[in-house]
């Protein structure tokens, strides 16, 4: 009853165009009052949700991405990608998917990743003639797929919650991410023909070499981050700061095209966008509390009982719930609220924990980018500067491609288990 009233208030306010974060907050306050909970939960949740070391990666990656775009670094990367595959129909779109895969390898936070990719890739996509909704769809679906590419923070959390080897999860993610990536590339191939996306002329070797040389400065970024991660030198958060520092040095001493005053403006814009995202996550923690105390987890466990007849049906049901949780509550709260409830049922059914975790990771990734509320999607749309309603028509084929990839991962457990098995981490 408590949750139902809260949900009705939330939906009503969202329909009246109140900013989603305040609709969540006001509905949360209504829930606290109706439930007789102390209203001190509100400031307490705001502080607990925003006082987060991991989320600190967001402002620095937004700042670095915006600065890299401003001084022309991203142009060099996109030029190289276009020189390599742009001459194919839909080649730039495919290069976004490939870039997302490799960028996920260097950035553990989805929000930071969508910030970096959105600010870096959206302007070149627009310049190349892609509609804003197509650009946002490519970045959103690519980043959703990248959830499975290690080192994802969500994998560390779910590994901890289900007591599963994080190294096994990291290894397990590579092939499923590639499977979803292939589904998306196939869609881009078809879309390019249907929508007549532009095709570049085949570049000369001289142009290709020149593009590679220009891309050397931005290519230092993934090399530094990968090296830092593999040597254990810094976390994703610190990597954001290192990249921000590198981008400031490159802008001032190599490109020499951004003034200090412009940097202050970029810092302000980055801070504002980051604040909007982190505030949303912080306000969502009030909902977590309400769900926890109203017995929602036990209720969900009861709902899932009829699905326990077959593995794929159970995993599909749980994945759908995780997607909805991920869309409303963001990925990490979904892991903390839902996964501990359903994981014991999964192990009782004989589902491999690594397979279960990979399916849930993929589902959370898709949920984060599911319209109309997925925070990742909303952030990608901020870079495209279009509303959800305008974007939805162009986005549904991408959602279907993501779901097709998810079903393949659910129905073929070996996609997740092959690499960990080879490494001796799974029997």
């Amino acid at each position, binding site marked *: 009853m408590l949750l139902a009233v809260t949900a009705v208030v939330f939906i009503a306010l969202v329909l009246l*165009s109140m900013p989603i974060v305040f609709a969540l907050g006001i509905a949360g306050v209504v829930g606290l009052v109706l439930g007789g909970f102390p209203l001190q939960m509100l400031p307490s949740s705001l*502080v607990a949700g925003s006082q987060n070391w991991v989320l600190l990666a967001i402002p620095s990656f937004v700042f670095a991405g915006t600065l890299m775009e401003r001084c022309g670094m991203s142009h060099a990367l996109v030029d190289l990608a276009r020189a390599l595959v742009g001459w194919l129909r839909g080649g730039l779109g495919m290069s976004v998917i490939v870039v997302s895969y490799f960028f996920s390898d260097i950035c553990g936070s989805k929000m930071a990743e969508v910030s970096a990719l959105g600010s870096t890739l959206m302007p070149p996509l627009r310049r190349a003639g892609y509609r804003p909704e197509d650009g946002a769809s490519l970045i959103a679906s690519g980043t959703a797929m990248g959830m499975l590419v290690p080192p994802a923070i969500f994998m560390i959390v779910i590994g901890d919650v289900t007591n599963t080897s994080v190294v096994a999860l990291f290894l397990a993610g590579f092939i499923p991410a590639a499977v979803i990536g292939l589904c998306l590339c196939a869609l881009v191939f078809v879309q390019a023909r249907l929508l007549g996306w532009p095709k570049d002329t085949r570049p000369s070797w001289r142009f290709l070499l020149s593009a590679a040389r220009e891309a050397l400065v931005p290519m230092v970024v993934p090399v530094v981050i990968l090296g830092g991660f593999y040597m254990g030198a810094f976390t994703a958060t610190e990597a954001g*700061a290192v990249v921000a520092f590198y981008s400031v040095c490159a802008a001032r001493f190599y490109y020499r095209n951004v003034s200090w005053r412009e940097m*202050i403006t970029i*810092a*302000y814009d980055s801070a*504002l966008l980051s604040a*909007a995202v982190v*505030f949303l996550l912080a306000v969502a923690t009030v909902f977590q509390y309400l769900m926890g105390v109203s017995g929602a987890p036990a209720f969900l466990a009861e709902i899932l009982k009829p699905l326990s007849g077959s593995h794929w049906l159970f995993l599909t049901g749980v994945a759908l719930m995780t997607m909805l949780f991920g869309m409303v509550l963001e990925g990490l709260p979904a892991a903390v609220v839902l996964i501990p409830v359903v994981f014991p049922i999964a192990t009782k059914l004989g589902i491999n924990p690594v397979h279960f975790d990979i399916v849930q990771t993929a589902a959370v990734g898709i949920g984060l980018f599911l319209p109309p509320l997925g925070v990742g999607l909303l952030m990608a749309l901020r870079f495209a500067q279009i509303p959800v309603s305008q974007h939805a028509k162009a986005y549904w084929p991408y959602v279907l491609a993501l779901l097709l990839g998810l079903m393949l991962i659910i129905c073929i457990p070996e996609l997740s288990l092959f690499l960990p098995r080879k490494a001796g981490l799974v029997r």
Partner: protein
Amino acid sequence: MAVTGWRRALAALPRFVLAAILLVAILDMLAGVLLRYVVVAITDYFDWPTVSFFWVEEVGEFALCWLTLIGAAVAILERTHFALAVLTHRLPLRAQRIVERINHLLIAGFGLLAAVYGWKLSVLNSTLVSPGLEINLALLYFSTVVGGGLIALDGLGVALGLLHPRDVVRPEAAA
């Protein structure tokens, strides 16, 4: 003229603060990497007393908390918060304005609640200190008083027609 200048400077203050907090957070994280991998190596090599860097995480988290709560208020006027345009844009212009004012009145109420209960929480935590820098924890919770207060002021300003979203002064314009 002078009054207008003051008003512009006052309006630009939260924006300067936001840019400054972001830069402090980035420098803090860089300092953490430097301390852990350069300074510690040097002190280990010369067998000097170890340099503590527990404060790095604390400063970063405090900075993000303040940035989020002040930014959430400024974002009301900048229209940075995510919103769905499902029904209201189909209403007559007058009705749209009324809905927007009611929405901002509710937002002001939310900010006021955050500020009032944030103040109580600050008082409650004023006897505790952070483990690294031993800063009074009231300083952390006071961010909800400032952020909530600014949200209430901005929300009320828009609801009463005194402030208009996107009618803002950028840092470089006020400099």
